[in-house]
């Protein structure tokens, strides 16, 4: 087996792991398990970035990998676990759509991304094609999670899973400038503090993080 084939297979394997964790997020019923699965996804993403850095010979991607591992894989999940404990929010995750239908929809979305991406990337290398298809699947699964969950924390995890997908796409695109990777990591950081403020404010007002409480207000004061 040539080096190119090994490089391809490993990248494929790691990308598929990120995708698997995306599915994992969809069927977890406990808040702590959701956060742990997200952490695993971020670590898989770090591995993907490091592998791309190695095979593309692009050392700046190691920085992306380090940020993904330390910040998204360790710090953010720890902060979220702390937040969940501190707020004492219920352990079960409330879903707007059952687990079964959600998984079916997820499979459909992955099929959709493959059907969409593979035909249009014929000129790109096989490596890029696969990572873009996987990245788009992860993005769509994150979106699905945001739609099917009612709780603010799980929605945020869905959003961060979506960002993991974006990052997977960015590291897979050969030679993409660093600006974007740093900006993504940075925006997650800012977003996180932002979310923190929000949680506390919502907590102050409603004593709950269930968005259904917010929805009683429809924006019209007739």
């Amino acid at each position, binding site marked *: 087996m040539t080096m190119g084939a090994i490089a391809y297979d490993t990248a494929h394997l790691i990308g598929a792991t990120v995708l698997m964790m995306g599915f994992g997020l969809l069927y977890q019923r406990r808040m702590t398990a959701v956060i742990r699965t997200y952490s695993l996804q971020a670590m898989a993403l770090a591995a993907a970035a490091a592998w791309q850095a190695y095979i593309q010979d692009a050392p700046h991607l190691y920085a992306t990998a380090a940020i993904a591992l330390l910040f998204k894989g360790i710090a953010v999940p720890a902060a979220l676990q702390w937040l969940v404990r501190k707020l004492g929010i219920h352990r079960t995750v409330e879903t707007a759509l059952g687990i079964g239908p959600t998984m079916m929809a997820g499979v459909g979305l992955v099929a959709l991304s493959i059907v969409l*991406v593979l035909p249009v990337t014929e000129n790109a290398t096989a490596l890029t094609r696969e990572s*873009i298809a996987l990245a788009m699947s992860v993005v769509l699964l994150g979106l699905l999670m945001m739609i099917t969950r009612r709780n603010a924390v799980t929605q945020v995890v869905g959003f961060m899973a979506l960002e993991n997908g*974006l990052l997977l796409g960015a590291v897979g*695109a050969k030679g993409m400038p660093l600006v974007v990777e740093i900006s993504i990591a940075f925006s997650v950081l800012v977003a996180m503090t*932002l979310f923190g403020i*929000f949680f506390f404010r919502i907590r102050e007002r409603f004593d709950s993080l269930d968005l259904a409480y917010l929805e009683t*207000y429809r924006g019209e*004061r007739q």
Partner: protein
Amino acid sequence: MISLAAAFSDPLPWILGIPLAGSPLLALIPRWRWGAWGNVILSALTLAAACGLFVIRPEAGPLLFIDDFNIYLVVLTAFVGFSTSLFSAAYITRESKGSRLTPLQLRFYHAMYQAFMLTMLLALCANNIGVLWVAVEGATLTTVLMVSLYRTREAIEAAWKYFILCSVGIGLALFGTILIYLAAQPVMGDGMSAMAWSVMMKRASSFQPELISLGFVFLLVGYGTKTGLAPLHAWLPDAHAEGPTPISAVLSGLLLNVALYALLRFKMLISANGHALAPGPLLISLGTLSIFVAAFMLYRRGDIKRLFAYSSVEHMGLMTFAFGMGGPLANFAGLLHMAMHSLVKSAIFFSVGMIAQAAGTKRLADIRGLTASRPLLGWLLVVGVLAIAGLPPMGVFMSEFLVISSTFARQPWLALPVMLGLLVAFGALVLRLQGLAFGEPTPLPGLEGVRAPSRFTRTIGYLPIFAHLSLALVAGIMLPGPLVTWFQAVAKMLG
């Protein structure tokens, strides 16, 4: 000395540097009055630097550039930013008398205002699609913080909704950006140049068309969310209604324009490619849908700021429609409408802010007879609303007329639904205006127990409204010749 001369020869670092330095500076100023004036001075300096672009056009760099298209939006943004900072100083003076905001919140507000201006200007000047994305993301973050400033239940819901919807939108836009890079990379090679507008436009015809098409769909959904196109507009009315009024004015007048600008740049790339999907039909259908949804929603509004927020959705729809039609005349109309809508809508929000402060409420049913109780404010609102509804002789009439007539000449069937939507919206606005401006005046409890603002505060509150409305009037009566030639040149660029 040489470096000093070099620094003055290029306005671009100043345009971005002033708000960049200003934001932390204003966060440090302890007294809010000084903060408000600092904000005005910084915005005036930014405007002066932006006007410098007319004299010296900087060379295109790898990250920033100025061309015929963005120069006008940079100057417009700096101008509206400056006049809003004036209005904001008057607004904040009144607001702090009602003690709705603490000094610390006001410091934060002013710092965020400058940070917002920085992100807007950076997005407009960006030569790199990655920098553009970062700037639009930054704009989302700063405005979310400003929308939630009052910390009421409504403000928190509005900010949350805005944040979630626009973050997802911006996420999808990034995916689109990655796809465009992938389309460019085989031709341009790795690295920065594969993301720079100025270089990409020259070689766009050899990019892979399918990849650009797929990327454009993601970009359309992503930046379209920020433009407030239906059905992705759900965040817009809430964010406009619950934040401080100066922020509603800059959201409508600037942020929506910048998001549309981002879309148009990618549309230019597609047109330059020539083989990718035609963006016209997509823009036309989203635009028409926005006009319709907003026009009918206008009838059921009970809140004065939400009413005008929906009117912004309608006008963004109209611009998107015009750019979707394409061609020199429709593009000309779209560009003109962008400027006119910015000026008039922010003027309306300025008067609405003062009205809501005087009435102590935003409920339309509780505000009546303004031309009798507050003649100047009432009549300014009448002029502003009639202007935005598209009555002559204001500039909005001119641009709407151009959109409709150019569409009639080419695709009469497309002009009909647009005209219908505009008429429905016109009816709604006139209906609401009648209640607001005429009839038996309601008491204005917001003014009771509050010391009347000084003559100076009143003047700087009204000045921006007068300035914006007179500019719109001048543009409606006689658009200056150089401006026309220049609009025509840009319209040609847009394809």
